[in-house]
């Protein structure tokens, strides 16, 4: 493996004493585009939380850039990786521009005002994500797709080396899904390491260089999409039958769940 970004070693974690992921181990090399798939409650989001430092481990450890994750100060960690989580609950009435400026938070001192450098980064990333026309809008008024683009853009403003995303395209239309995933793909081509929890196996197979499938808190299978995506593997993962083929345009694996085939 190339220089490891993450080394996850027998990690167990969960909420309120209930274990969700159970002694999971894997490594992540620099420049990988990993998608995490699996049924609801399998532990995809929990893994993202545990390796982004927002959920303490019950046992085991996570090494990030060779150091124990728990040793990082929050601002230090935020300047080395960025995370896109679903924002739940009441969304405050902030402008998109202001929301994007939160991406500069780890780099700012307590006493500081908006500066030119911040504005330059925000402008550059906004045009890269195609959201310049949204800058003056309120994040409350955005559609789910627009808000997700804004979230990804904020993450890019914070850090472009390592990106963790928890279901960034789950409730988006195809246009916005492709827009978000293409941004991640382009970033990955310039060397970014991306770990992304997804529901749709097709999206995962289309974009990622490696799929890690979780079931009941443990790794079910792990590897290159072309090697690991098979009818047997998927029916084992989702307890339902699948038919596998290829996307005629990209040549990537594509899968078709079969209705009425729950095992």
């Amino acid at each position, binding site marked *: 493996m190339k220089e490891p970004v993450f080394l996850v070693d027998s990690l167990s974690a969960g909420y309120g004493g209930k274990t969700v992921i159970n002694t999971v181990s894997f490594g992540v090399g620099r420049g990988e585009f990993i998608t995490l798939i699996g049924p609801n409650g399998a532990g995809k989001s929990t893994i993202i939380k545990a390796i982004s430092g*927002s959920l303490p481990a019950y046992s085991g450890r996570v090494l990030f850039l060779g150091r124990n994750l728990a040793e990082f100060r929050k601002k230090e960690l935020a300047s080395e990786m960025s995370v896109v989580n679903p924002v739940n*609950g009441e969304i405050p009435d902030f402008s998109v521009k202001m929301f994007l400026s939160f991406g500069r938070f780890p780099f700012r001192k307590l006493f500081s005002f908006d500066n030119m450098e911040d504005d330059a980064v925000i402008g550059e990333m906004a045009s890269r994500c195609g959201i310049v026309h949204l800058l003056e809008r309120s994040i409350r008024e955005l559609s789910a797709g627009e808000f997700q683009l804004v979230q990804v853009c904020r993450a890019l403003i914070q850090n472009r080396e390592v990106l963790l995303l928890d279901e960034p395209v789950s409730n988006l239309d195809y246009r916005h899904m492709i827009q978000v995933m293409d941004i991640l793909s382009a970033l990955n081509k310039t060397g970014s390491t991306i770990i992304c929890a997804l529901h749709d196996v097709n999206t995962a197979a289309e974009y990622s260089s490696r799929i890690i499938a979780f079931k009941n808190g443990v790794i079910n299978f792990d590897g290159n999409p072309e090697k690991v995506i098979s009818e047997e593997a998927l029916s084992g993962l989702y307890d339902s039958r699948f038919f596998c083929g290829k996307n005629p345009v990209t040549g990537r694996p594509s899968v078709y769940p079969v209705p009425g085939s729950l095992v």
Partner: protein
Amino acid sequence: MKKIYIYTIPGLLLIISIITGLCAGAEFINPLIIADNIINKSESLKMEILLKIRFPRVMAAAFVGAALSVSGAVFQSIFRNPLADPFITGVSGGASLGISAAVIFSLGPLATVFFSFTGSIAAIVILYLLSYGRGFGGGIFILAGVALSFIFSSSVMLLFSVAESQSVHKAIIWMMGDLSSSGDVGQVVVSALIFAVTLLLWIYHRHINIISLGRSFSNSAGLSDSELRIILILASILSALSVILGGIIPFVGLMIPHLARLVSGHDNRNLIPLSAIGGASFLIISDAVSRSLIFPYEIPVGVITGLAGGIFFLFFVIRNRQVY
């Protein structure tokens, strides 16, 4: 600062409130006479009333109102709940238990301040521990806050029932909301502290904005737990300071931030100063009304804010009833 014009109307409102507060009362003083007396530096009985009685009182109302509203605004942002305020979180209750104990045991002013800080911080620490890991969302902290308020108020009653009646009377007057300050050193010190803590919270406005998007967001944005704790403790101290200076004055901290948000939006950079201005104006006016409504009696100012705030609260709940 951009959008400076949003301060024009609230600023004017504050000036009008101060003038009203100085003029209204048992004896109405014509503002033109005040101006005339200031210009000619004449000394009259009216000026005496104005400087020795009304001015300290208007200042007390201003600082108490500002402290309540700013801590309410900060609690609402951090707990992401429109109903959060110093009372629902139990923070004021903790402070008043501390102060009641200090008054009843006839401890000195320093002990009073210390006890009230301890009570309010104890409340916020309990809330923090209960809602930590749940992202501060949901109703848990409202339930916990209400429970805390009851525990604190029952403890105050317990203290009163075993204490000497003279000290109880003193404590009860103060608990009904008492702005009749004497302009002594204590008032100046507490007011200066209120100003300092408000300024500190304003400096943290960007942090508070980030926390208002939820704990998982603020975590990944690089905001540490210790920064969150500092902000919570500052907001609790601010509530305690308001209780020290003005006693129990309900609903200001709940209501004013909602009105301020109509002008400033949710950005705490403007919300904190506007809440301060709005809270100061509202409490000065409420106090003026309480002094002049049923002459020659003086209604406790908490009755006025409780009535106005309670009616506002009802409308707020009715307007948002699909949420509950």
